[in-house]
């Protein structure tokens, strides 16, 4: 019989939080856990806190139980909505088979990491059953000393250097840009499984994020879990964003598809602010932050509308946190109500299932703030009793045709 249990700890002491979360997850689980997923917020980062958290977990959890997880910006579970603490998910199902995978150095060598990851999945997974891949990728990071609470490169020299040497930086960097698209494209040249995924994240500052694999705390690694079982898998996607600008065309960009230099033949930042009817000279840090989060770049892949947050801005380029190789783009935006409604949409049908698992973007959480409690109310009204929503850096999914990475969106799967 299928059983899913979600745990919560609000303890600041990492070891105690680890112990507590295993106890309160397993006491509600009917059967032996097939795996254990762990999602703490970044608050445990200091003083080797994530390792202490895992030590606490394995003081209570059988070491043979596969464990995966990552740092997140926040989560919603049946107990409430939180941006501090740790949540977990364990599933017991005698008919479920579990395969775990790891791809190291997913930022430095994403293709190699994807190969390594795909080999582990292909070697172990059952051939006959249907299934779903839960993928965790490392999120992008910025150097804290340079970008403390800002996403603007104001120094013209630094802006020029960044523009010129970005491809070199990208090729050599072990950290920084997440290279999610590069990893996923390679992975899906080897496998074709349905997928739901999240990028590890922090408290929306973008300075650090972590992945967990067994009792190991990792950075810059892809970790995943392939669940095979009989029965249909539903993957749902929704974004609250609506088109704000006319259709635009990227006319100059860097080869890696992260920096947009020109749109419609004009300087990209100039055109971006012109479309928003804003004069650059009035841009404060606060306004710039709101604008770059509130007006992402969007595009279509078939009939799927997906988004990229502007993570970096200078007079010479708009820098995306995830590569975008589509020339036709839009500037888009969302309202508070469209964000809440998108959670309604993505959980439709969940009331008839045993468990709803969702990933969503930390930017949406930042935008709605405490109104996120309305999402929990929606789930309760629908009588969805057992669920877990995680808020991270990017959302990834594969339905039928092609894998997609997006931001400012939500993806769910039902069990």
């Amino acid at each position, binding site marked *: 019989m299928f059983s899913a249990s979600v745990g919560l700890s609000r303890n600041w002491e990492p070891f105690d939080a680890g112990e507590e979360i295993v106890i309160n997850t397993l006491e509600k689980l009917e059967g032996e856990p097939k795996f254990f997923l762990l999602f703490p917020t970044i608050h445990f980062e200091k003083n080797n806190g994530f390792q202490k958290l895992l030590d606490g977990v394995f003081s209570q959890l059988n070491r043979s139980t596969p464990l995966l997880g990552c740092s997140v910006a926040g989560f919603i579970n049946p107990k409430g909505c939180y941006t501090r603490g740790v949540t977990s998910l364990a599933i017991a199902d005698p008919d479920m088979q579990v395969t775990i995978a790891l791809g190291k150095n997913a930022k430095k060598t994403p293709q190699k990491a994807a190969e390594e990851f795909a080999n582990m999945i292909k070697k172990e997974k059952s051939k006959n059953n249907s299934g779903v891949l839960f993928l965790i990728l490392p999120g992008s990071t910025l150097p804290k000393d340079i970008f403390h609470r800002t996403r603007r490169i104001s120094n013209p020299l630094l802006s020029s250097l960044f523009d010129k040497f970005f491809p070199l930086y990208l090729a050599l960097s072990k950290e920084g840009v997440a290279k999610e698209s590069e990893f996923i494209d390679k992975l899906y040249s080897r496998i074709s499984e349905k997928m739901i995924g999240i990028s590890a994240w922090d408290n*929306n500052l973008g300075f650090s994020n972590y992945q967990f694999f067994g009792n190991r705390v990792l950075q810059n690694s892809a970790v995943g879990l392939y669940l095979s079982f009989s029965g249909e898998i539903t993957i749902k996607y929704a974004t609250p964003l609506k088109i704000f600008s006319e259709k635009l065309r990227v006319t100059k960009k860097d080869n890696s598809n992260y920096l947009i230099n020109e749109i419609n033949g004009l300087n990209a930042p100039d055109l971006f602010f012109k479309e928003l009817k804003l004069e650059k000279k009035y841009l404060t840090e606060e306004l710039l932050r709101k604008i770059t989060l509130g007006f992402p770049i969007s595009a279509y892949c078939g009939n799927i509308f997906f988004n990229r947050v502007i993570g970096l801005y200078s007079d010479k380029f708009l820098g995306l946190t995830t590569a975008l190789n589509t020339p036709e783009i839009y500037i888009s935006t969302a309202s508070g109500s469209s964000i809440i409604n998108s959670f309604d949409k993505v959980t439709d049908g969940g009331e008839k299932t045993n468990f709803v698992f969702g990933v969503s973007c930390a930017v949406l959480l930042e935008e709605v703030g405490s109104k996120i409690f309305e999402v929990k109310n929606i789930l309760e009204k629908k009588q969805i009793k057992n669920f877990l929503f995680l808020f991270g850096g990017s959302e990834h999914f594969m339905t039928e045709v092609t894998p997609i990475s997006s931001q400012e969106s939500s993806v769910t799967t039902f069990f």
Partner: protein
Amino acid sequence: MSEETMLSVLEDLLKEEDVLAIMLARKNEISVSPPPDKFKLKNPSIFSLLQSTMNEFFVVIEKFSSQGLDKIYFELGEYELMFFLIGGDTALVSIIPALANKGLLEVEMENARLKIRELIQKGV
């Protein structure tokens, strides 16, 4: 309601890196707050000013509370103040940096408000 229990809720919130100062302000009563030496304010006079003017805030808060006033925000130089109201005569007040990720902090402010409401109802 027990000050110690309330203090533990406030101290929990103050552990957040971006919560620089916190208090539970009550109309015509002494506010509850952790010791000021635990605050992370560069300019502590802001907190003293806030404490001494809270009753004046409550005059306005009370007038709007029947209209559903729930939260008040205002910017004060490099700081931002968040008021989460609990009825017309109590407010959870925090001081955060102007460029903090306010949305994420709001979620934990809401959790603290829920906890305080629960404690008030229980008469703890």
